[in-house]
């Protein structure tokens, strides 16, 4: 029998599952309570549990990266260095950069939300390769542990970009093994991406066509394409650098006729697309949150979907903008400068479309929405300042100054981190079945965003006025900006620490969330929270595009015209065994 179709002011993509009663919820077996043993977690192939494993450790690594930068910012309170020696300072900012990029920004949304939510959004029971998914987590942990161990036993002082010849010839730090740690985490990145690509192609439920995919799935798909194509080049670059360090001579070594710039070409071929690996999943989250909390369909679905693909493709053609001052040929520098201008266009399209989505929507300011609005504001500033750097002429003055640091923190932290927090807060009720404190979550969001702004706006000013990056000492005239920046960082820190408390508290004292606390349209919300082991009690069938927030009772109208199928209608009409795919749209009873 068809599940009773409820009276709704919006139109979900498929028929919602019946809401369990309080008693049923106590007795219900879900993916969290079916087994509490440690082994059931360490040997799980359930994409939801693997997502939570990523969540725990990504949060731990974020804390480590934050600790490293707290040392940096405290040191920068004084122009002559307040608390660190010169060498320690190099190690502190390198630790901050490498941990944040490789152990947090790149893996967090694909590992947590990509794993947990993508299969649910497309109506699948799991990822295409569940065991590979678990392997991907173990590989990530191995690489991360190895890398952190190297940081602990001597650190890395080369900056996160570890350019030769400093890194291979002159630095006395454990580059080879640290590089091996990065290599291993890169492998994990590839495996996760492979899983997502194949899952999106092959595991969609009936009715889930490409044109009905939530934009988060489009974003994750584009991200995965980048990971597949770019990460191997980093792997081979790190390998060659390790060879150079081990042998004492290498292909980047000028004494042999080698070119250090070749390292930079190969490094940035990965590392520029890497920043799109970091931001695209965040952009996907923003599409989900903004539509839900404006109660409005996305403005320009196709534009936003294809702009993700556009960013993924064009993002591969701009890497030389990191090398304008390094000795790259002038002709190629101009080509890269021009294409970098072009890559801003798809991002701008997204920002315009999100803004148009909010316009005349019915907006509410829960924590996810505050983070999303913060994203819009901060990412736009980040993106615009990128144009200053894309212009080769102005980059001559701004390269390697705090302007660059402020630019990428606006996009990575003001953009990606805010988006991550938006996603975490949006899907927390789905993952845990609990609601968190409204007051504390909104306060944390406001503190994070305002603290962020205070931290990094002064850095634009300092950089514009010439303060170089990676310097432990600086001219006195920059001190005011540095003090403001450190003050802002403290406020940010409070903003990022609060979620630890209220989110964990929600697990114990939080109200039960129910299937769909946000009244959202996606498939993941049409099943109970926390989800059952196989996500859905029966295979969902998709009837509508995503984000039909403004259409009331669409499913009822469809059912009234006889177009809605139950599972058994479906199976009978197609003569397949229970659970197979078939053509959809056969009116029940025919």
């Amino acid at each position, binding site marked *: 029998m068809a599940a009773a179709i409820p009276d709704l002011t919006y139109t979900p993509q498929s028929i919602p599952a019946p809401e369990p009663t309080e008693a049923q919820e106590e007795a219900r077996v879900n993916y969290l309570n079916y087994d509490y043993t440690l082994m059931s977690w360490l040997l799980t192939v359930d994409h939801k549990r693997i997502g939570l494993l990523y969540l725990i450790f990504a949060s731990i690594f974020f804390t480590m990266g934050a600790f490293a930068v707290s040392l940096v910012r405290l040191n920068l309170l004084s122009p002559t260095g307040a608390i660190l020696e010169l060498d320690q300072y190099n190690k502190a900012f390198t630790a901050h950069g490498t941990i944040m990029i490789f152990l947090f920004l790149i893996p967090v949304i694909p590992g947590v939300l990509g794993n947990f939510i993508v299969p649910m959004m497309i109506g*699948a*029971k*799991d*990822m*295409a*390769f*569940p065991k*590979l998914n678990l392997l991907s987590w173990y590989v990530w942990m191995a690489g991360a542990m190895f890398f952190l161990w190297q940081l602990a036993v001597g650190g890395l002082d080369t900056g996160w970009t570890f350019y030769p010849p400093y890194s291979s010839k002159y630095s006395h730090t454990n580059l080879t093994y640290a590089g091996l740690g990065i290599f291993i985490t890169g492998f994990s990145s*590839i495996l996760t991406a*492979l899983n997502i*690509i*194949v899952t999106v*192609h*092959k*595991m969609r439920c009936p009715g889930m066509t490409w044109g009905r995919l939530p934009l988060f799935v489009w974003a994750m798909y584009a991200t995965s394409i980048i990971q*597949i*194509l*770019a*990460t*191997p*080049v980093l*792997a*081979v*670059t790190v*390998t*060659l650098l390790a*060879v150079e360090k081990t*042998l*004492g*001579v*290498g*292909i980047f070594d000028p004494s*042999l*006729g*080698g*070119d250090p710039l*070749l390292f930079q070409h*190969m490094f940035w*071929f990965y590392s520029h697309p890497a920043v799109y690996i970091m931001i695209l999943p965040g952009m996907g989250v923003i599409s989900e949150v903004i539509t839900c909390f404006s109660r409005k369909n996305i403005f320009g679905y196709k534009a936003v979907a294809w702009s993700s693909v556009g960013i993924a493709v064009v993002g591969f053609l701009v890497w030389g903008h990191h090398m304008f001052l390094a000795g790259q040929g002038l002709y190629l520098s101009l080509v890269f400068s021009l294409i970098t201008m072009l890559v801003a266009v798809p991002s701008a399209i997204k920002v315009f479309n999100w803004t148009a989505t909010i316009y005349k929507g019915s907006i509410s300011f829960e924590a996810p929405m505050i983070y999303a609005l913060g994203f819009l504001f901060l990412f736009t500033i980040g993106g615009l300042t990128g144009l200053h750097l894309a212009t080769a002429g102005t980059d001559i003055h701004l390269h390697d100054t705090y302007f660059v640091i402020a630019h990428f923190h606006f996009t990575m932290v003001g953009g990606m981190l805010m988006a991550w927090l938006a996603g975490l807060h949006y899907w927390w009720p789905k993952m845990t079945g609990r609601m968190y404190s409204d007051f504390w979550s909104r306060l944390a969001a406001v503190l994070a965003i305002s603290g962020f702004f205070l931290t990094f706006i002064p850095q634009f000013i300092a950089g514009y006025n010439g303060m170089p990056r990676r310097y432990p000492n600086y001219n006195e005239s920059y001190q005011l900006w540095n003090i403001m920046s450190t003050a802002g960082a403290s406020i940010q820190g409070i903003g990022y620490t609060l979620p630890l408390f209220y989110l964990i508290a929600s697990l114990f004292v939080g109200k039960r969330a129910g299937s769909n606390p946000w009244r959202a349209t996606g498939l993941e919300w049409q099943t109970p929270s926390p989800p059952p082991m*196989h996500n859905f009690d029966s*295979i969902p069938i998709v009837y509508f595009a995503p984000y039909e927030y403004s259409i009331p009772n669409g499913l009822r109208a469809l059912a009234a015209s006889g177009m809605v199928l139950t599972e058994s209608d479906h199976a009978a009409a197609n003569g397949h065994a229970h*659970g*197979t*795919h078939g053509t959809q749209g056969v009116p029940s009873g025919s």
Partner: protein
Amino acid sequence: MAASTTGPVAHHFDNLAQQQTTVRMGMWVFLVTEVLFFGGIMCAYTVYRIWFPRDFEAGSAALNVGIATVNTFLLLTSSLTITLGIRAAYAGNQKALKGWLLATIVLGSVFLGLKAREYHLDYQEGLMPTSKKVVVYEKDDEGQEHAIERSVFAINVERVLHEEKFDTAGVNTQRVQLFFIFYYAMTGLHVLHMVIGLGLLTWQLILAQRGFFQHTSRYVYIEVMSLYWHFVDLVWIFLLPLLYLAGSHTFEQAIHQFQHALGMH
């Protein structure tokens, strides 16, 4: 004979067809990463080959092309054997499947054995890139002896090239190290991929022994194994001309070198 259209299907798939196409796609997407991996190092190689053509030809001339030639035929034949193995699995012929898997493993192992011998000979000839230098005494134009530092590698490669009768005019023998770093890195990465491939083939052989492939629908796993193995062959197809055939060799030299490798000289 056709593979059965029914077979064991994992819990998260809806039907067998979905499972088969998914497994194939997974391997193809993985091979994309491998193309970019080897493509990256080949791009770096190309840059330097264009910059230093003479030095790279010289480096190539110092390699053992005899072993490389034999290895090429071994690897090609192993591609054949694994492809025949797919047909055996498809038809449900367990004995033939195990035979072809074993043949592939043997051919691959002989390849690795010869490669190890090749590396050993390179090591014996002193062709390892190094930053070490020695002081040698050379006479200048006026017959005066001067002490100068020369790279150990450069001295070794000059000796080898002299034996191979390669004209070293215009060759910066120190810079030939660049070529050799690529040689070791590219062939080394290829060896690593072969070792992994042999491990996977062995695992499949063990599975076959345990009757895993009795379900003929599972031929698809041999098929994806063959995709990986063919890729390894593909890389070698490019490594051969880029590394070994760049310099001038003669067929006689190749035979001579192979005999030397087998210890016949």
